């Protein structure tokens, strides 16, 4: 039998809707693709599945009954990896959850469980990196602005951290790769997209007067905290991979 191709909008709710449909229509042999993703030559049937909030919610509620909080969050993290084929893995895992009596999220001998636990870790590491590597620059209109280009779509995962921490300053974290960001206006955090990608140039007059001084002080500090006789470049690069340097003040 030919493989069914399922195409969806790429949203989390969309993915959960697919799970519902898989059960409802008793689909067994299928591959899931985001609409934005290139799909292979289509032989079998193609299904376009649209978000259905109530179906998605039913699946999510069902999962929450069978999985604990961290395990549920891990599924969401894996989805945010945007890795090719991660949807298929997630659906396989969810089917495993619904068909088993006990908990399955720790049965690492199952390849799908193990792979998702690894992907979850990768995404989690990227979340931590972004919590560490965001560098705000203070603009003239008193907004602390940071551009990022994370490997995975981690903005949803870092939102709370920044909201809890920087509660008394306006800030904007913008994912240039995915073209959206989050803006905190001292009351709420909202998702925003800017038409022109906001690349703030350190020389530009958009920055607040003391901004360059603090950037220089930070560079001075970074320089002087180093112990030259303990130089360890490989370790340095392991922790601060070159691809992140672009937005790290101390590395420019």
């Amino acid at each position: 039998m030919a493989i069914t191709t399922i195409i969806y909008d790429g949203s989390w709710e969309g993915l959960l809707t697919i799970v519902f449909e898989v059960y409802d229509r008793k689909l067994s042999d299928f591959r899931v693709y985001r609409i934005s993703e290139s799909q292979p030559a289509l032989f079998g049937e193609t299904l376009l599945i649209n978000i259905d909030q109530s179906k998605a919610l039913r699946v999510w509620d069902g999962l929450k009954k069978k999985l604990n909080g961290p395990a549920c969050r891990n599924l969401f993290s894996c989805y945010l990896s945007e890795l090719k084929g991660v949807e298929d893995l997630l659906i396989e895992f969810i089917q495993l959850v619904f068909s088993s009596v006990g908990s399955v999220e720790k049965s690492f001998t199952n390849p799908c469980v193990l792979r998702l636990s690894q992907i979850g870790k990768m995404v989690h590491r990227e979340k931590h990196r972004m919590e560490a590597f965001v560098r705000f620059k203070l603009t003239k209109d008193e907004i602390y602005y940071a551009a990022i280009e994370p490997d995975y779509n981690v903005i949803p995962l870092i939102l709370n951290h920044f909201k809890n921490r920087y509660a008394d300053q306006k800030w904007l974290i913008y994912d240039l790769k995915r073209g959206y960001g989050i803006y905190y206006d001292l009351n709420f955090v909202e998702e925003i997209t800017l038409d022109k990608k906001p690349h703030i140039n350190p020389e530009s007059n958009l920055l607040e007067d003391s901004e360059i001084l603090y950037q220089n002080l930070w560079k001075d500090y970074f320089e002087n905290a180093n112990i030259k006789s303990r130089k360890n470049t490989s370790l340095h690069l392991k922790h601060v991979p070159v691809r992140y340097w672009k937005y790290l003040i101390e590395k420019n």
Partner: protein
Amino acid sequence: MSERIREKLSILADAAKYDVSCSSSGSNRKNHNKSLGDAGNGICHTYTEDGRCVSLLKILLTNFCIYDCAYCVTRKSNDIRRVAFTVQEVIDLTINFYRRNYIEGLFLSSGIFKNADYTMERLVQVAKKLRLEHKFNGYIHLKSIPGASNELMHEAGLYADRLSINIEMPTESGLKLLAPDKNRNDMIQPINYLKNEIILHNDQKKLIKKTPMFAPAGQSTQMIIGATAESDKDIMLTADKFYKDFNLKRVYYSGFVPISNDKRLPGLGSSVPMIRENRLYQTDWLMRFYGFNVKELLNDSNPHLDLDIDPKLSWALRNLSQFPVDINKADLQILLRIPGIGLQSAYKIVQGRKFQKLNWEHLKKIGIAVNRAKYFITCNSHAYERRDLTAMNIKQYILSGSSGKNIKNNPYQLNLF
């Protein structure tokens, strides 16, 4: 103005860098009523080129000092430029770095100007103003100044997350030799006072939920390694004593970086004992997380750690009679003692074996270092190490199979074994 502050920062960051502690975890200060910051996430915001985590703005308030400790760049006989921050300058730097997400908070130490209380009072002032005037909830680590009064130490505990005094010399004789005008008791007194205050506070907290925080991340200390001739056993017994007697959260080990041609010390050009330092951290971890007693690892017949293999492997080779261990049956405590199995894999083994008996394939997937562990375990497979190997054989096999990678690893953040 800006040049002046840049110069001060360069000098006072440079002088503070020999303190290796950069931890910003262990607190749980929350951001109430929309103020600035929270503490306890332990984020490393960057890493210096020597591979060390940068989590805090680590500076001295001043490098003026009335003491002359031979191992310290700030010692009074050293001919260097002396500067001092004002309280407000430290506050501005901290807040502005914090708002830009450069740091988790402040680690403020100081040379001792005038006397202990005069210095401690200024450190406390910085913390107090940050907390009360600037509503700052980020992490604050203050140095306790040896000989400071109980009143000041109490205030320090109210505003700081962590306090530390570096005992620096692992033995009293070492201290006598290199810092003759300092004494161990002056250092122990604030540590002991804070220990009791923390206990008292925790008791109170059980009765009254709203008790304000008191040094929630506890106390730590640091020892310099390789400045004097103490053995690894001396060092770790002292560490063990500080963990037990004063409830310290961490002891840090800092390989001595030569700074002068003082005859009492390793001269300029001698190398920093980084591997030894690494081995001491591993021993520290084995004591704190793996259930080892310090005397199992270091004792009169083994006063020094092996440099070529890690202390857990060394211990296992000395105790081959306790192996092999059956992976599918042994308690977690026993699993933790197997070379090649870390905390996480031990935990995964315990979880995984509930579902099926584990074989080599499973163990590899779980992530244990099979080429190390295989000499010490059996699992659900007929293939296992049957030869009757001596400790020497095993050590050679393991060493020839490893690239020596672990030696280059970061001594501050170990997940070896």
